[in-house]
């Protein structure tokens, strides 16, 4: 295991942080399936710091995660979008105080089948034509999106309704969270989306950038024109904000009481933020900018 560890891109132990040593107990995280790989990677690395701390990471989707978080069932909620007002209200009602910490960046990618050579770049309007609620049952062919596109039936895949990805995408493209045509294949499991897009020449779908990078043979990410020209999702375009409107930050929400009362939660979260870069790399995400990292550390500091 040691040898494997060495080539695994794991943060070197003994970089001054011994916060986890000696602690034990459990840390319960739930929420976004997009963010889960990050928290899992953090948990994975954290085991070397504090082998007696049991970290579980469930994937109920951002919304589902907040539901549990505000019911005081979890310590950390992973989120691929900021908390909504009604969710915040729930937490307040239950007396749950929390802190939002930005933890990584993601480019929400629009993907098509690799065979598709005509759709290189789509504008937000075109995406809206495809995905809008009014498209349901009517926009069924690529040539309805652009007359220059071939006569090819559309097959739509995307994130399930519990996910922050879904919320984010519908908000960015259709202007309202949750507004989307229903005749597409929603799945909480992004790999199903990969399979779906890979298996259908006329497919289009949306998911996290990591899936695109890992499945170059199955998927092709297209450029998105948010008004300032076609931009491909990459680490740079996401970090510098040009991949708009689909570049997005990812968050963890920490229960303040847990952080204060449970040393294992505190040391895990501290470790997580500190090793943010390695974690993002391991989980195939885009790390924080200097600025973002500073913000995150400030937020941590307010927790005590």
């Amino acid at each position, binding site marked *: *295991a040691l040898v*494997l*560890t060495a*080539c*695994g*891109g794991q943060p070197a132990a003994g970089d001054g942080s011994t916060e986890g040593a000696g602690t034990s107990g*459990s840390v*319960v995280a*739930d929420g976004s*399936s997009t963010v*889960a*790989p990050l*928290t*899992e*990677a953090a*948990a*994975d690395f954290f*085991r070397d710091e504090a082998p007696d*701390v*049991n*970290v*579980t*990471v*469930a*994937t*109920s989707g951002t919304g589902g995660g907040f539901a549990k978080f505000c019911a*005081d*069932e979890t310590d950390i909620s992973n989120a691929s979008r900021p908390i909504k007002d009604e969710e915040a209200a729930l937490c307040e009602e239950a007396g749950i105080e929390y802190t939002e910490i930005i933890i990584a960046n993601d480019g929400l990618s629009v993907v098509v089948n690799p065979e598709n050579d005509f759709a290189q770049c789509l504008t937000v309007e075109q995406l809206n034509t495809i995905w809008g609620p009014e498209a349901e049952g009517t926009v069924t062919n690529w040539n309805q999106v652009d007359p220059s596109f071939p006569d090819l039936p559309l097959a739509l895949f995307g994130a399930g309704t519990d996910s922050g990805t879904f919320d984010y995408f519908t908000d960015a493209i259709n202007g309202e969270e949750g507004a989307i045509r229903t005749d597409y294949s929603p799945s909480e*499991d*992004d*790999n*199903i989306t*990969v399979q779906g897009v890979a298996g259908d020449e006329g497919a289009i779908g949306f998911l996290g950038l*990591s*899936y695109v*990078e*890992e*499945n170059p043979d199955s998927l092709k990410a297209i450029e998105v024109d948010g008004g300032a020209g076609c931009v491909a999702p990459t680490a740079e375009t996401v970090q510098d904000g040009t991949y708009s409107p689909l570049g997005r930050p990812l968050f963890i929400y920490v229960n303040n009481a847990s952080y204060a009362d449970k040393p294992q939660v505190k040391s895990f979260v501290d470790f997580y933020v500190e090793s943010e870069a390695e*974690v993002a790399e*391991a*989980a*195939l995400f885009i790390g924080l900018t200097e600025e973002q990292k500073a913000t995150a550390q400030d937020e941590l500091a307010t927790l005590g």
Partner: protein
Amino acid sequence: MRSLQDSLAGAPTMPLSTGKRPREQRPAPMIFLIVLWLSLLIAVVFLITLIVNIVLEGGSRFGLQLFTEYPASDPDRAGARPAILGSIWVIGVTAVLTIPLGIAAAVHLEEFADKRHWFNRAIELNVQNLAAVPSIVYGLLALAFLTLVGVRDKNIVIGGALALSLLILPVIIIATREAIRAVPSEIRDGSLALGATKWQTTWRQVLPASVPGIATGSILALSRALGEAAPLLLLGALVFVSFDPNGLLSGFTTLPIQIFNWTGRPQEGFHELAAAASIILLMLLLLMNGLAIFIRNRYQKRW
């Protein structure tokens, strides 16, 4: 039409060797037999294809690491240790819960219950019915139950075991009843006629004689539970667990869930890991079925 009378004359009539192909070997019966064999062979070929497929995909990842390592963000470092331990925990608790309960229920139904009583008939009907209820419904039941008793985190060993226990309890009851029924009534009569009570007869004669049948049925039922994922999904067992489960209230994941989880990852390496973990499951399945067959053939008495 030759009247019946003619054939009775007794004089040698048609020879028995008709010169034609024997009727058992004419085309129609031969084709029929081939069709029957084919239906079985198709199933077997399918099974072999499945196994070969999985071995080809997961073989390279199948190794010690799978058993000793925790899940990780890098497929090269990841293993299924918590899932294997989780499966052991959940199946172990399930076995402890269901086997005594199932045997007790079966003993009641076979040895003690008056089969004409409405209550016992209702139980019988229920058992048969429950055996065919979709597993996912048991997940819904366990979820509702845990919510009712106010369990905060439903993904705990005892919760999973509860769902699986309810799922396989009818199977174990039915298998045990069959094993008990196979004990000839002469043995019971012999014992009772000596002045043994019903329970003495059950405990000293019937149960020992039906142990092989009960063991076989229980093993097969547990092997089914081992492969179940759907009811556990409802309890939220699709989690990343990077520690060894260590108690009834400990969080857990199981092999089928881990497989499902890995297949949902972007990296191809995880898909291979999923296949490798499937090999473990298949090996366990074959092992358990083999054990059941061994017990059945070795110890099952022919009365």
